[in-house]
């Protein structure tokens, strides 16, 4: 967008501008890294973090110092893996051992990789991976073990998919396959993060007993991305929407994008949104287990963005034509709201659940199920932050007079007191005017004359001090 265009846009959408300014001006990070005390390899790690991540770089750098470096490195290791997996110029025979053995490579001092194709956007990270390895050596043992464990699982999962993709170019089939894929690309990351949060005592250890909550956090984000990116993935010849869902609407995947099939395609997409929305309550439940503000911000921001994105893509035909994303202003407002507390994040979820429900269309086969799912989210929020208190309701009923309410007598009293106050104000204004020297007699006389004149005017007094009129 050009500058002039942007100016006009913000003129027409002042709330967006306000949200951006609010975030930029008023957001105070809980923690700030201190570059003056950092080693050159640390600095290099943050350099690559900023280079490779659009959405996570900022929140990671505001993390509690205890987890700042471990999570930054965790991110870079996974990004390294991803850069190998994504690169279609690397032959599968070379790729597979790299993915499966990455946890060993990342322990080799000075290991770097320059086998990525020249167009691979994050190739620099692997070219300088020795800096990451140097920093990994300094990570506390329990944290390092978690990072290594997830790297093993993720590397093997990616290798399996890479081999599978060679054989099967048709994409994901069942909903179970779809969720397994989301588990590998997002659920595992979540698992590692939850273990890091608990190991550092920044989250409730009970989260480890309820790993399905962690899984939902990852599923919710990944499914949202997959729905949003459907057009881009289609153009790249990839398909992540499970056949089990889209085959209920189409025989051929490509038909989803034909302009004449828009209504059907929207129904299919709302089926996908319904499937993603099922994780919302567990995400809120998970966030209730976070004990540290910086960690809360770190997990809450992507979740709020996800529910807002689901609302944006819900019944939005544009997703079949281009890439859609939430506006900068909305993103800033969501970030402001996600860096407060669970209650504010719950308000965000409720707000977007209601917007989704407002866009719902009765002709959609999933109409009532979507309405019920939005209702479930609202009901879950009520269960954590109840609006009503039965004890108070019972007490109010026992003493009905204490209840704030307005019957006829109340209304009469209210009107009477208003009139009384107006008279009081009027009288005191006249009194003040008189004290300040206003000529009351002249006014009374004027009034009298207007009414016919019965007051006899006293003898005119010369040289009256003060002013004649006010």
């Amino acid at each position: 967008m050009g500058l002039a265009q942007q100016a006009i846009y913000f003129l027409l959408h002042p709330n967006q501008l306000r949200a951006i300014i609010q975030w930029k001006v008023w957001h105070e990070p809980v923690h700030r890294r201190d570059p003056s005390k950092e080693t050159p390899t640390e600095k290099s790690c943050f350099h690559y973090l900023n280079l490779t991540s659009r959405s996570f770089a900022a929140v990671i750098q505001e993390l509690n110092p205890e987890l700042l470096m471990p999570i930054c490195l965790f991110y870079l290791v996974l990004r390294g893996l991803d850069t190998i997996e994504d690169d279609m110029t690397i032959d599968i025979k070379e790729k597979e051992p790299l993915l499966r053995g990455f946890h060993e490579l990342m322990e080799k001092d000075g290991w770097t990789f320059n086998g990525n194709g020249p167009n691979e956007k994050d190739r620099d990270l692997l070219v300088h991976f020795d800096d990451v390895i140097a920093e990994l050596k300094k990570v506390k043992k329990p944290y390092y073990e978690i990072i290594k464990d997830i790297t093993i699982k993720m590397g093997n999962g990616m290798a399996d998919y890479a081999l599978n993709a060679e054989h099967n170019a048709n994409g994901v089939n069942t909903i179970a396959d779809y969720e397994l894929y989301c588990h590998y690309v997002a659920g595992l990351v979540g698992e590692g993060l939850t273990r890091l949060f608990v190991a550092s005592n920044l989250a409730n250890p009970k989260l480890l007993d309820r790993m399905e909550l962690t899984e939902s956090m990852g599923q919710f984000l990944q499914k949202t991305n997959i729905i949003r990116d459907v057009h881009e993935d289609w153009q790249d010849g990839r398909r992540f929407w499970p056949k089990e869902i889209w085959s209920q609407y189409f025989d051929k995947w490509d038909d989803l994008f034909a302009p004449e099939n828009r209504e059907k395609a929207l129904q299919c997409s709302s089926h996908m949104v319904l499937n993603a929305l099922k994780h919302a309550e567990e995400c809120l439940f998970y966030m209730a287990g976070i004990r540290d503000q910086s960690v809360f911000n770190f997990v809450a921001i992507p979740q709020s963005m996800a529910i807002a994105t689901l609302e944006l893509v819900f019944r939005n035909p544009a997703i079949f034509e281009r890439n859609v994303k939430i506006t900068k202003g909305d993103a800033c407002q969501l970030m402001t709201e996600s860096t407060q507390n669970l209650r504010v994040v719950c308000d965000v979820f409720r707000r977007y659940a209601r917007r989704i429900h407002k866009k719902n269309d009765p002709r959609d086969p999933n109409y009532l199920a979507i309405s019920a799912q939005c209702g479930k989210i609202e009901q879950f929020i009520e269960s954590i932050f109840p609006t009503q208190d039965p004890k108070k309701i019972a007490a109010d009923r026992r003493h009905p007079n204490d209840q704030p309410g307005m019957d006829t007598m109340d209304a009469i009293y209210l009107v009477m007191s208003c009139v009384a106050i107006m008279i009081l104000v009027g009288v005191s204004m006249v009194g003040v005017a008189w004290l300040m020297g206003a000529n009351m007699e002249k006014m009374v006389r004027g009034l009298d004359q207007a009414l016919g004149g019965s007051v006899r005017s006293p003898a005119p007094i010369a040289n009256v001090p003060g002013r004649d009129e006010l």
Partner: protein
Amino acid sequence: MSSEAKPSLGSVLVIGGCGFLGHHVVRLLLRDYTCSVSVIDLRCTRNRRPDPDGVSYFEADITDLDRLEAIFSQVKPDVVIHTASPPAQGNDKVSHALFKKVNVDGTAAVIKACQKTGVKALVYTSSASVVSDNSSDLINADERWPTVRGKDQTEYYSETKAAAEELVLASNRAAEAPKLLTCAIRPSGIMGEGDTMVLYHLINVYRQGRDNVQVGNNDNLFDFTYVENVAHAHLLAARALLLTAASKTIPLDHERVDGEAFFITNDSPVYFWDFARAVWAAAGSPRGTEHVRVLPRSVGMVLGFLSECFFWAIGKPPTFNRQRIVYSCMTRYYDISKAKRRLGYKPLVPLDEGVRRAVKWTLEQQEKSKAQ
């Protein structure tokens, strides 16, 4: 489910077993349980099972204690499911007298008969409306909410349901018959095959082309419950009471079923007008929401008042009134955790499937009556 796996309920007597809810209770008893089934109803011609099902039918007025006792002595029920209640329609002296007679006096007679003939378990169909004052919101209400009684209760029907529920729960382990265990089921917004109220009215609204107005902002959640799920909850409760009766110790407070009331819903509150539109869509409406005009609640209240004045002037009961507006703008949904925990309740049929079945039945009935 094989017949060995079906739990046993002994001899079961369903009062009101030809009614809307009652005949689904009978159907589920035959489908999911091992038991002998008897039915008491005012008339036993409608919703009657075919003879091979082996259900015994008795015609009786439940306020007639002598007649009840005679049937109870003959059937010797272990379990009594009391679903009988007149339709909650009408606000005049005659219907009030009927509510009182059937709901309160009738239930008192049923309790007496249970106590005199050694019944083990009595499950009473109460109503989720017993905690509603018909104007305030009920937001995720559970069993801790107080019942609304006396002058606070503007619907006399709910008053009589609450009074009867109180009688039933007071008779649990009472001195007259310490072995009798009782509980109450409070369903919210029952709908399904056999329903002549909720869906019937909604489909009429659509037929008359009045589906183009929405009163209020439609952010209010409401609990509707498919009838089979309600019937299922009754039978889970009956089974829990029998298990309690068979054990030597009194259960801990947090596990108790006897002497307790339970809210029952489909566990999926939906926005009020969404439910209506889902019904209309199932009834064949091809429309979305583009044609809908939103009427603020306050405007609706004024129109309702004018309608009441008009009908008062012509001396007829109003078909449209302020209470209807209040209901359509009210939030009214329940937390059923207690039933899930203590009864092991989970809806058998999801809400959208329930709506599909119920609308299909209603349309078939209307076709039939047209053909006649």
